[in-house]
């Protein structure tokens, strides 16, 4: 036989017991040819284009799932940052465009469509300013639309005026969706150094240098890595790194295969495989549990950042060996609400916002799905965003803030969205003002790239 018994059983165990699945296959569609002077014509063009490319996306993905016995958790679509082709429109028009995206997403049977976005790290056009103002209304009046705004980059620095606007947008989105635990904020990401080919919603968008249409895939396998680490037992850290790399290698290979097959069926080019370890609220599918299996008592203990750094680095090394098309975020995600281990660590008082911030300096993305008290001032949220963006631009990596000032809630209460978004305990934020700093506005200049101490 071409394959060993043990190899075959290992694959079966990964897919059937350890929650190995493909987290998302995301179809990126360019909307750059959809602009028209008339809003109605523009909306029709957007709708038609998404349907033309996306009509069979869910069906094709399901066929590939059955063929390989690996489930694909999410089938999604990302589009060109809406502010770019539709720069001439006003705030109300952008809300209408969001509704069109929502309708198209519903029609093709997907749960989220991302790309209600703007890239304003250097400065803002009039259209981008209008789009940012429209974000809270767009998110509260649609179910499936996700939004992201890039406010900083290593080359441009941090646009503090945009940071302040985004803090206000987050507060307003929280208020407008207060009956649903401020869910609007769960669909809104503020980036620094955003990547153009990220398949993971809510932060996905179809970047400006991407082709007409492309299919990107995001893998997910914390459960598989967790079991491999447990099985390895008491080995030193180099050996542990080997164990992680071997596991990631296998799941990246499977991810690329699935991505290529879905792309082939859709008749579109394959883009990248994002090797991020993305947790889900399912038991055992947790980054926190991996860190604990590596040896820290709980997430938040001294040593957590080092363990996470090693995990993240091992994931990247193995992924790059396994595929020539690695892209997107490609690191470990540490969203609080989507990871049962993280939730427990917060509830036990072991994990603070500050420790989470430190952890984001060594892993993918940033302060993700974190609930904070609803009365947190916008200037404090702006301070949090600025801190996170600073980590990103200085370390030349992507960072993001997806924070939920849960309207009317206090520390210790919970927000509960169900499904993949999970539930989050409201965390304490330092009661010190950032107003004097963020209120200055303007820009934090781009950092230097030498003397990096």
């Amino acid at each position, binding site marked *: 036989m071409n*394959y060993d*018994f043990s190899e075959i059983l290992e*694959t079966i165990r990964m897919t059937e017991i350890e929650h190995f699945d493909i987290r998302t296959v995301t179809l990126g569609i360019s909307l750059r040819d959809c602009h028209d002077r008339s809003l109605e014509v523009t909306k029709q063009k957007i709708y038609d284009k998404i349907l033309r*490319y996306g009509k069979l996306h869910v069906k094709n993905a399901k066929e590939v799932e059955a*063929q*390989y*016995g690996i489930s694909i958790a999410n089938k999604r679509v990302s589009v060109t940052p809406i502010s770019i082709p539709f720069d001439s429109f006003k705030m109300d028009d952008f809300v209408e465009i969001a509704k069109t995206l929502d309708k198209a997403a519903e029609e093709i049977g997907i749960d989220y469509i991302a790309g209600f976005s703007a890239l304003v790290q250097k400065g803002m056009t009039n259209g981008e300013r209008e789009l940012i103002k429209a974000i809270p209304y767009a998110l509260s009046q649609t179910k499936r639309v996700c939004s992201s705004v890039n406010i900083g980059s290593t080359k441009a620095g941090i646009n503090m005026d945009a940071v302040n606007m985004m803090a206000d947008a987050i507060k307003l989105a929280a208020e407008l969706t207060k009956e649903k635990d401020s869910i609007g904020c769960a669909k809104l990401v503020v980036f620094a150094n955003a990547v153009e080919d990220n398949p993971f919603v809510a932060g996905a968008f179809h970047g400006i240098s991407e082709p007409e249409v492309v299919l990107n895939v995001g893998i997910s396998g914390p459960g598989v890595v967790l079991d491999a680490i447990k099985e390895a037992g008491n080995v030193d850290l180099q050996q542990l790194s080997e164990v992680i790399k071997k596991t990631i290698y296998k799941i990246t290979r*499977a991810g690329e295969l699935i991505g290529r097959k879905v792309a082939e*069926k859709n008749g579109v080019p394959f883009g990248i495989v994002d090797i991020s370890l993305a947790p889900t609220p399912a038991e055992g599918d947790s980054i926190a549990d991996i860190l604990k299996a590596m040896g820290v008592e709980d997430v938040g203990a001294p040593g957590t950042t080092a363990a996470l750094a090693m995990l993240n680095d091992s994931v990247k090394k193995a992924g790059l060996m396994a595929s020539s098309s690695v892209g997107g975020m490609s690191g470990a995600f540490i969203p609080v609400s989507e990871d049962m281990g993280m939730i427990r660590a917060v509830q036990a008082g072991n994990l603070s916002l500050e420790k989470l911030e430190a952890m984001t300096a060594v892993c993918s993305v940033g302060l993700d799905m974190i609930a904070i008290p609803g009365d947190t001032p916008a200037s404090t949220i702006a301070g949090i965003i600025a801190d996170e963006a600073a980590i990103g631009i200085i370390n030349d990596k992507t960072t993001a803030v997806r924070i939920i000032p849960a309207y009317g809630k206090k520390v210790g209460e919970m927000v509960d969205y169900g499904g993949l978004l999970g539930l989050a305990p409201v965390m304490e934020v330092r009661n010190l003002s950032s107003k004097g700093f963020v209120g200055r506005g303007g820009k934090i200049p781009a950092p230097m790239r030498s003397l990096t101490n």
Partner: protein
Amino acid sequence: MNFTENDIRRITFETINELGSNAAPDVVKEAVRKKVEASTTAPFDAVKKDSISGRVILTSFGLNKPGIVAAITTALGNANCDIQDLSQKILVDFFTMIMIVDITNSKKDLKEIQEEMYKTAASLNIKIYLQHEDVFRYMHRV
């Protein structure tokens, strides 16, 4: 699927040039529709054929009892599937069997065969998984 507005515009211009003075709107519309249909159906057929051919790996395990191998091989035989390799182990009360099955000549596609095997599995109270061979090749071979 792969057609953009520009492609359709290009085809339309080509058709108008071919038809010359006969290019009435209705005639052009009909001719363009036929051309588009002809070129979209071809690749779809190719994709469909690809998805039903090739080798799959069948893994089954559960509590040992008489008639398991017979039931599985009968179902595969009826679907005209070729068993190319078979490896089986019994550990105390448990049995595990792995088969490499070529479904290229089967009248049924992978999905139908899977459904059939899942029925067989349910009636025997065992687990059967059918996965395309590629996933094992990708994961375990550099």
